[in-house]
């Protein structure tokens, strides 16, 4: 663009300033506010100050002292990790077939799994509740892992097949020409190239399982398998006379930290994964 140098830099500065303000007010203010609430003592919780007047870790100490929260955290981590692993393994196989192999009916299969991704979860909750109760899966880890895998699989398949499409598959052929077996070609040549995509997909799937609320609240009934989002919604403070807001703020910070860390460390890949999954289908 043939802009005059001076004017363009001023315009840029203005734009930069506007963006900064927008980002801070829009995205960070609410998040920082809840972080600030989590560090306030019970006495100063309602003072409306943005920076806590008395810093305290009591809220964190309280939630980690209750088995309610600690158990839920373990459940969440375990369930999300197992569901992610299984979904990524099946998803990788499926995405490989979609990106790499040509067979009639492929489009139909892709369409079917896309439709399933959009299948409303709430209409499955009631039958799953009945089925899981009769199979003894209700209120167990597998009882949540199964529906999570199902809804994570389409997500995994799309994100992965978008990544796999970009891999230079000629390398595989070249490796075979040089005498590698198909297994070796896959392990030594394709797997290292596919790893970043698989990794990104795993993060997205993990976030998906970690965030779920509807299945978690419908298919569990005790601490045995309740996940963090559900435990959070049942929070009532450490005694019944105490306002739970401080604990809620602390718990919200704790469960959001892993997601924020993922995003900070892998932001470029996550953005690429979200957009390729969403736009390239």
């Amino acid at each position, binding site marked *: 663009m043939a802009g005059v140098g001076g004017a363009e830099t001023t315009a840029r500065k203005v734009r930069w300033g506007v963006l900064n303000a927008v980002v801070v007010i829009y995205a960070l203010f609410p998040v920082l506010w809840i972080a600030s609430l989590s560090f306030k003592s019970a006495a100063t919780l309602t003072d409306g100050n943005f920076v806590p007047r008395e810093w305290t870790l009591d809220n964190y100490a309280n939630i980690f002292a209750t088995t309610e929260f600690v158990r839920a955290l373990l459940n969440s981590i375990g369930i999300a990790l197992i569901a992610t692993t299984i979904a990524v393994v099946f998803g990788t196989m499926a995405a490989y077939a979609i990106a790499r192999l040509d067979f009639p009916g492929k489009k139909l299969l892709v369409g079917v799994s896309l439709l399933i991704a959009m299948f409303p979860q709430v209409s499955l909750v*009631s039958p799953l509740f009945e089925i899981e109760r009769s199979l003894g899966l209700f209120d167990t880890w597998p009882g949540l892992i*199964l529906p999570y*895998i199902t809804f994570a699989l389409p997500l995994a398949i799309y994100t992965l097949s978008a990544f796999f499409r970009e891999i230079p598959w000629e390398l595989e052929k070249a490796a075979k020409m040089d005498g590698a077996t198909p297994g070796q070609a896959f392990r030594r040549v394709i797997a290292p190239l596919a790893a970043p995509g698989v990794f990104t997909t795993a993060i997205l799937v993990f976030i998906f399982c970690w965030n779920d609320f509807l299945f978690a609240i419908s298919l569990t009934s005790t601490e045995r398998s309740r996940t963090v989002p559900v435990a959070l919604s049942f929070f009532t403070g450490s005694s019944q006379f105490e306002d739970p807001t401080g604990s809620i703020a602390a718990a919200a910070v704790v469960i959001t930290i892993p997601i924020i860390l993922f995003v900070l460390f892998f932001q470029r890949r996550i953005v690429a994964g979200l957009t390729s999954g969403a736009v390239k289908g």
Partner: protein
Amino acid sequence: MTLDTAPPPVKQVRRERPTPPRGPGGASRWARRAPLLPALIFLIVVTQLPFVATLVISFMRWNSLDPTNRGFAGVDNYLTVFTDAGLRSSVVTTVVLTAAVVLISLVLGLGLALLLDTKFRGRGVVRTMLIAPFLVVPVAAALLWKHALYNPSYGLFNGVLTWIWGLFGSQNPPQPEWISEMPLSAVVASLVWQWTPFMMLILLAGLQSRPMDAVEAAHIDGASPWQVFRYLTFPHLRQYLELGGLLGSIYIVQNFDAVFTITSGGLGTANLPYTIYQTFFQAHEYGQASAAGVVVVIGSMIIATFALRVVSSLFRDEVRS
């Protein structure tokens, strides 16, 4: 059992269109599909078997508190869904909620995407921070809005109002009870906050796939920025806007977390998923809940079909260019 009956349509399609001449024998043709099968079988078993159960139950008279009175009810449950005042109003709420959230977050997302489309220092950081709301655990986000922002005594909104009024020396700032005074807007605002980043990402991808030579040519020919936006950028973005709108609709129609957390479905904010949840877990009306579930499925499938069409047309464009 249903497993055996599910795959045949797929098989038939395969027979209709045989593999190209170079295709190998039957066994190896199956081997090609093998990697896809575990995922597909899994998907069908976990979603379609329960769905068949929903379909069956939706035609039954079944309240778990009244186990003796169970039997075939015909379309009674569906009639209830469409005539019961509570359920009907929840259909309206769902439509209003979805439309409001999708439209507002599309407009805001477009604004942010246009801002982010220029190269400047720290663009990556800004983009990362902007997608943060989309990645915050939804229940935590809803709780954040309910307790940290809307709370009349220590919420951020009323805190800011106090501060602004304080600047002008006033001691009596307005302190609205956000959730009870404007329940539906409260839910909409929190969802818009979460979904704008998603729209922004999709629209940003659209902006960046725009053919830049045409834009430059228009600039050289003296087109104003508005004209460039109106006649070049906007037509190109239309598909992406559609895609964002459709995907957003599919997920917001299903929203449960925000309604459950912020208002517990009270004050006229109960949408269909929340009502179904309540009909099932509190009223124990399994038949009615299932019928409402089937209605939601049909609605989503209609939106999803449109979404699929947009996705595949985008994909064709990409191949062609």
